């Protein structure tokens, strides 16, 4: 043997010995122990994993665990709120780690795109919302709760129970739907059927680096939600509730009472040349008198209380009994319609959760009940939810589980955008009482009082209308670990929801314009979505420094829905118990059914994560999607992303900076897609035709029509995806152990190939034109999350966070005509979306003052209808005449920034929290002024400012125009800046005080934790906006258009408790 070969043999022997030795020493054995916190309390639910193996368990309620490990293994203990700890297995059989409270969530594992990651390993821009923050401001649904919690997420709410939010992430990337994709337990789902109490974690994937893996569904951003699940250990039962009441806004619209309204009539008569006192109610003049009866049979404005026409025996409000004979007394003081329609509303919420399990199986069962009444009479959200989440370990390497939710929603809603019943509270005159003399409803049947309808009657009559939605949502999944580093997971899930509703329309008698008959409509349908996901992952740590994870997967998603409905009229009775379709008259019946086209989406995706020494992190993702929505030529899209992060604090030069706990620089670029707003039939040229649009009574039969057809759709098979390219740079820092944290992101998102309906000339007929890929929108923004937490003393702790959202939106390209108008109102379109301007900009004439006298009028440029008391418009093009060319951009509803500000403070067993939210620099279009600040137009109620602050010949005013009967270009007939107001606001959304009972007291009765709290929401708002609420819901291309919204700023007082057994 040569020395060399000897050495080799020796080496082999040593290696062999080592191997044998390791075999000897590597015998696995049972390790048991108890995990406690610094305060000595057990830590339940902590995850115990043996590093480098698949062995994992969870601590029981008393903190105990047992796991198999070998000597030399590292046991990793992780638990939310604690620093991750690693303990080397030596010779001991018991390991009892003491956990140190985490000052950051760096080691927290959160679910992101198809995977879960430690916070410190995330390279993309991901915002994490803790369930406690989420539910801090009570609302029916998760969507509304997100307001102000995530930098970069714009959320606009209304006060209506069950109404979703107008929501967008990082500005507005298209003119249609900007709602993010909600992924609940890995499956695309409906956020609004979810019980907020079931949410365990919520992550917002903000940049392309994190969201691109969702491909065509990712452009609006992705919100990933995981629901609560059971943990090993004894059963734990929690119960949470609250009760409370919501109060309507005290001031309403600031309208006139009966006397004031009559005075305003006098003013309008005086201001209008040639006008006479000829209102049937107010007498012959010269000053208006208030009648005793506004209507008595066929007489109007009856002043004599004993007029024979007011004989109650003649009263009839039943069409079946002959002609309507209504007798209605004037309300001499004035009906406050706002507070007839909006009344204090009760609400309560209960959630019971039971969970537990062993190391082989875990379960969670929850029941939720929400009864949230709205202040609008008859509006409410009742929701029952049941959730069962279970998971089983078949072997140590094979797991099965399911998440299942059944929800039942009963949620009658009133319109909140457009000319709604809420608007009737300013249109119905104060002289009209709620009820007439015979117990029926009062209304505008009394001549001379406009054509509004009784808003309370409308709401009251809708009380018997019912509708519900039952949804089953969830998934089943299985996963297996194999070949040491591989994991395969398959999940099948989806939604089935079934809805049903019916409504009755009354044959009204009390209004100037009544329904011609009673009617009943009944509708039902279902929507389905299934999602089959398969994914294979590989993870390995090479040489302790190189952390590699690879994921590939496929996903198939399909949707389908159908519905039927019908209506009939002339029901013999109005009785709710009589309402079935078959009881209506066969004349005037109609029915329909629809089938929304199947859509299918098939995708392949991959993801690579690489980390070097936890210092340099790289992620690349790619997804290829194919969709049935687009034609074969363009249905496939590929969406890559790259992101990288540098954890500067892992560098040796930063180690010495003890104040710098963590510093991470991130960057990402990627593409995402969007197919929204595109009909699945877009690629097809089709014919069809319904009874109303293509049938014709060619035979002259008068009561039947012959079937006809028309072209319904022009197809374009070439249309493909909208593509959003987003670049994001971010910096995350934790300083002084969390005394100061921040996370800042700057992004630029270019949305290209927006799906627009092709603007085809009318000569091609009335078929729906295809969506094509034209138009670009650009958003840049800066998001900032600032936080500070710590303790001032042993008893005083605090946690403060602020989120700042800014975005700048710019329309880069619209094909053909470089703008389109939207937001159609009685006097024109309020919004123009135009290249070079932010989305949803207000457009019209710029009011620069009010003509005070004839001299003003004479020296002004030519302007249709110009006269003293009317508006002076800016001659934008300086051509000496006010024409359509002088319209200009008069407002922008996009806020310059919005701010969420949260303070949590605790002292001993007391906790206090408050949350503020505001938007700044945004305008709103207060369209209610069209109705209440101009006498002309519709004869509704009017504002106090119309009476008290308007221009008259003897009262110069530059704020409110003349009150007159004539509608002109120079006053209400066109869109102008009089309606545009600053709508910045800053609101205290919630203030809460809680007290947790000492354990020593409650443990005697078997309770682990008991907390009581009281809470007030919307206590105060700072704003200069004159409407009900500056928070006005709209949609992407029409924002901030206020017809008189369902206010979101109503005060609410609640008391609640949280118990854990």
């Amino acid at each position, binding site marked *: 043997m040569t020395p060399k070969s000897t050495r080799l043999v020796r080496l082999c022997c040593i290696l062999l010995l080592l191997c044998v030795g390791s075999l000897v020493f590597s015998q696995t054995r049972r390790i048991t122990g108890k995990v406690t916190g610094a305060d000595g309390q057990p830590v339940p639910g902590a995850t115990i994993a043996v590093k480098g193996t698949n062995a994992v368990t969870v601590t029981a309620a008393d903190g105990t665990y047992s796991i198999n490990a070998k000597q030399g293994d590292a046991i990793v203990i992780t638990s939310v709120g604690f620093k991750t700890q690693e303990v080397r297995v030596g010779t001991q059989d018991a390991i009892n780690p003491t956990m140190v409270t985490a000052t950051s969530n760096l080691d927290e594992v959160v679910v992101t795109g198809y995977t879960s990651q430690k916070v410190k390993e995330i390279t993309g821009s991901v915002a994490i919302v803790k369930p406690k923050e989420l539910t801090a401001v009570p609302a029916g649904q998760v969507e509304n709760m997100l307001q102000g919690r995530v930098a970069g997420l714009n959320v606009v709410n209304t006060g209506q129970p069950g109404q979703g939010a107008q929501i967008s992430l990082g500005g507005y990337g298209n003119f249609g739907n900007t709602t993010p994709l909600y992924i609940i337990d890995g499956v695309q789902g409906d956020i609004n059927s979810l019980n907020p109490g079931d949410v365990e974690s919520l992550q917002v994937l903000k940049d392309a680096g994190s969201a691109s893996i969702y491909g065509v569904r990712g452009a609006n951003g992705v919100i990933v939600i995981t629901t609560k699940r059971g943990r090993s250990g004894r059963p734990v039962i929690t119960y949470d509730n609250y009760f409370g009441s919501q109060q309507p806004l005290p001031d309403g619209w600031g309208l006139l009472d009966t006397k004031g309204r009559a005075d305003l009539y006098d003013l309008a008569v005086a201001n209008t040349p040639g006008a006479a006192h000829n209102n049937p109610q107010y007498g012959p003049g010269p000053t208006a008198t208030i009648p005793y009866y506004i209507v008595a049979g066929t007489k109007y404005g009856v002043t004599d209380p004993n007029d024979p026409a007011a004989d109650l025996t003649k009263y009839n409000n039943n069409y079946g009994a002959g002609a309507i004979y209504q007798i209605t007394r004037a309300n001499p003081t004035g009906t406050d319609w706002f507070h007839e329609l909006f009344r204090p509303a009760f609400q309560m919420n209960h959630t019971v959760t039971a969970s537990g399990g062993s190391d082989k199986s875990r379960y969670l069962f929850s029941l939720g009940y929400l009864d949230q009444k709205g202040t609008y009479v008859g509006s409410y959200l009742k929701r029952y939810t049941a959730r069962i989440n279970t998971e089983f370990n078949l072997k140590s390497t094979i797991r099965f589980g399911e998440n299942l939710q059944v929800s039942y929603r009963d949620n009658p809603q009133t319109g909140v955008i457009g000319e709604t019943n809420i608007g009737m509270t300013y249109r119905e005159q104060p002289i009209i009482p709620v009820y007439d003399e015979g117990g029926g409803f009062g209304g505008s049947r009394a001549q001379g009082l406009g054509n509004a309808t009784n808003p309370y009657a409308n709401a009251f009559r809708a009380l018997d209308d019912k509708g519900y939605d039952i949804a089953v949502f969830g998934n089943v999944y299985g996963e297996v670990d194999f070949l040491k580093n591989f994991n395969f997971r398959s999940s099948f899930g989806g939604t089935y929801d079934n809805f049903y509703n019916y409504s009755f329309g009354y044959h009204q008698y009390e209004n100037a314009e009544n329904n011609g008959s009673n009617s009943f409509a009944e509708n039902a349908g279902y929507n389905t979505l299934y999602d089959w996901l398969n994914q294979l992952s590989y993870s390995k740590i090479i040489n302790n420094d190189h952390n590699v994870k690879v994921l590939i997967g496929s996903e198939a998603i399909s949707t389908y829905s159908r519905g039927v409905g019908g209506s009939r009229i002339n029901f013999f009775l109005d009785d709710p118990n009589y309402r079935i379709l078959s009881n209506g008259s066969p004349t005037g019946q109609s029915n329909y059914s629809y089938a929304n086209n199947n859509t299918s989406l098939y995708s392949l995706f991959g993801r690579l994560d690489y980390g070097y020494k936890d210092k340099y992190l790289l992620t690349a993702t790619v997804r290829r999607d194919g969709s049935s929505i687009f034609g074969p030529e363009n249905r496939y899209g590929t969406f890559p992303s790259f992101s990288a992060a540098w954890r500067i604090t892992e560098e040796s030069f930063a180690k010495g900076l003890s104040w710098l706990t963590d510093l991470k620089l991130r960057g990402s670029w990627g593409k995402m897609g969007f197919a929204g707003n595109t009909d699945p039939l877009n690629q*097809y040229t089709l014919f069809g035709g319904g009874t109303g649009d293509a049938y014709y009574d*060619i035979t002259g039969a008068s009561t039947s029509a012959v079937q006809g057809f028309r072209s319904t759709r022009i197809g374009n098979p070439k249309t493909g995806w909208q593509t959003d390219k987003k670049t994001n740079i971010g910096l995350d820092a934790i300083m002084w152990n969390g005394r100061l944290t921040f996370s800042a992101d700057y992004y630029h998102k270019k949305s290209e190939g927006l799906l627009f309906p092709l603007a*085809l000339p*009318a000569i091609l007929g*009335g078929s729906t034109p295809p969506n094509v890929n034209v138009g670009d929108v650009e958003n840049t923004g800066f998001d900032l999350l600032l936080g500070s937490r710590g303790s001032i003393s042993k008893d005083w702790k605090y946690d403060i966070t602020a989120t700042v959202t800014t975005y700048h939106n710019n329309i880069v390209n619209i094909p053909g005509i470089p703008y389109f108008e939207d937001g159609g109102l009685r006097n024109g379109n309020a919004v123009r979306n135009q290249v070079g301007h932010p989305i949803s900009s207000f457009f019209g004439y710029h009011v620069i003052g009010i003509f005070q006298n004839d001299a003003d009028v004479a020296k002004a440029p030519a302007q249709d209808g110009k006269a003293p008391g009317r508006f002076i418009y800016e001659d934008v093009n300086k051509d000496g005449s006010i024409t359509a060319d002088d319209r200009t951009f008069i407002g922008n509803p996009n806020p310059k920034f919005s701010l969420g500000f949260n303070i949590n403070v605790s002292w001993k067993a007391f906790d206090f929290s408050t949350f503020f939210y505001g938007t700044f620099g945004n305008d709103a279009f207060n369209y209610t002024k069209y109705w209440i600040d101009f006498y002309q137009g519709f004869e509704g109620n009017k504002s106090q400012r119309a009476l008290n602050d308007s221009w008259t010949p003897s009262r110069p005013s530059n704020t409110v125009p003349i009150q007159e009967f*004539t509608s002109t270009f120079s006053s209400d*007939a066109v869109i102008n800046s009089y309606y545009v107001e600053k709508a910045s606001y800053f609101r205290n959304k919630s203030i809460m005080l809680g007290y947790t009972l000492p354990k020593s007291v409650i443990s005697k009765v078997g309770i682990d934790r008991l907390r009581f709290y009281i809470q007030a929401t919307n206590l105060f708002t700072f704003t200069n906006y004159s409407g009900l609420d500056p928070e006005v819901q709209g949609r992407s291309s029409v924002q901030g258009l206020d017809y008189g919204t369902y206010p979101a700023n109503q005060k609410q007082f609640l008391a609640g408790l949280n118990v854990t057994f």
Partner: protein
Amino acid sequence: MKYLKIFFILALAGVINYACKKSYLDQAPLGQLDPSALANKNGVNGLLIGAYSLLDGYGGSGGGFGTAGSNWVYGSVSGTEAHKGSSVGDQPDIVPIETFHPTSTNSYFQGKWQMLYDGISRANDVLRTLALATDVSADEAAEISAEARALRGWYHFDAKKMWNKIPFVDETITYSAGNYLTVGNDADTWPLIEADLQYAVDNLPTSQSEVGRFNKYSAEAVLAKIYIFQQKWDAAKPLLADIIGSGKYSLVDQFHKNFDIINKNNSESILAAQASVNDGANGNNGNWGDVLNFPYGGSPGTCCGFFQPSQYLVNHFKTEAATGLHDLDNFAATDVTSDQGKLSTDAFTPYAGTLDSRLDWTVGRRGIPYLDWGVNPGNDWIRAQSDGGPYSPLKNVYSNSLQGKLTDASFWSSGTTANNVNLIRYAEVLLWAAEVEVETNGDLEKARDYVNQLRGRAANPAGNVKKYLDNSKPEGGFSNVDAANYKVGLYTVSWAGNQTLARKAVRFERALELGMEGHRFFDLVRWGVAATEIPAYFAKEKSIIGYLINGQFTTGVNEYFPIPQTEIDKSGGALKQNNGY
């Protein structure tokens, strides 16, 4: 372990294969027809029905009040006959049309344009699909083409009256051919419109089993109208003679039967948009475009107080007590007294002078029985007198006894009715024939005879509005007592040699016979008198309707309406705006 690995690879492959099947991403359209499914006789006929269905101006793209087949806004409100009505803020787009300050962005023009070109497009769909059908004989194909081209010509003609400079769109213009941006509006389209109707005249039968279809005579009537609008009197004359000579059409004995649903499609109806209700279409096949045009305030139709006749129109109906004829020159000088400015509770005595009986079948006015609805109470049925005047429309209004039967009760008002929109009545054919004689300075006595046929009918006392037997029970029927002082006389003095008088009389008779039927503005324009008559009307009427003070007719501009700006923009430069807009 190896098996496990193989299992998973197979499983994954299976999944990918399943979903990758081409068919997974191919979803056939649901609930709609592929074009090939219509390429047969029944399919083409269905498309033809769809093309007819826009004659009423509703059910297609842009549908609304401004697209009504009756042209109440453009023909009557613009044409001195009526006001928008209601209150000024309701449907404010009509105000600038009424006062002749129309802008190219007014939504009413956009809607009307879209509706008419939708009709044209549907007619072209018939022709295109017919060419692909194999089960249609040559004769059938000619007949179907003739109906489709008659419709196409009619829709183009309606557009021509509105805008003059219009694009003519035939079946070769399609999205897929990419030629739709080449269709301009500079060329003379009259020959093309004439050609469509001439083809229809040549290929249509003299009668059709289905009353709503074009026949030879209705096509001739449309073609005659097209010639008359071009003052091609000689071309129109034989067509009118053919219709009159056919014996197929005649005046019905009472004027009002033309507007009474149960007498629709009578011997006087040459072309009408057919209306049906309670047919499962929620009122959409009813007379939708006129749904606002009812009195206000819980009264007939329950809504909305629009389309209020003008005092100027009403004044036409005064007759001289001795002759029963009209003061053709100064009819506007004195008013038929109205209840303007009076409440329904104020005392009011209706006009006592003699009147043409057609007034009270054309205009609802205070104190006169309003069909079987009761005595018109005046102001109680008016939304705002200061905005619309004292009168209510009547020709499109249904009888109380028909409510719910021939009106669509599933609608928000009972104002969608089965009342046809009269597009061409035989009475109008007679008036055209009279006009042809006048303008050619032909047989003026023949013209007088035509006019007298209409006046003779109006003079028939059986056709007068009568008082109720009992005013409190209007449903109880009518007495034999005339509701007002009616006196209609014939032109008994020869017109021979007096073309000026004959012209005046014929034109005046059109106002009486066809008032509120959507023709007047187009007549004023084709006669070249819009620039004198409309300002005279404003001067008269502005004392009643305040906003008419802004009324100003600009000669050389306002004869035609502005072409919708959106369509100009979308045409890529092919469409040019009319002069002055």
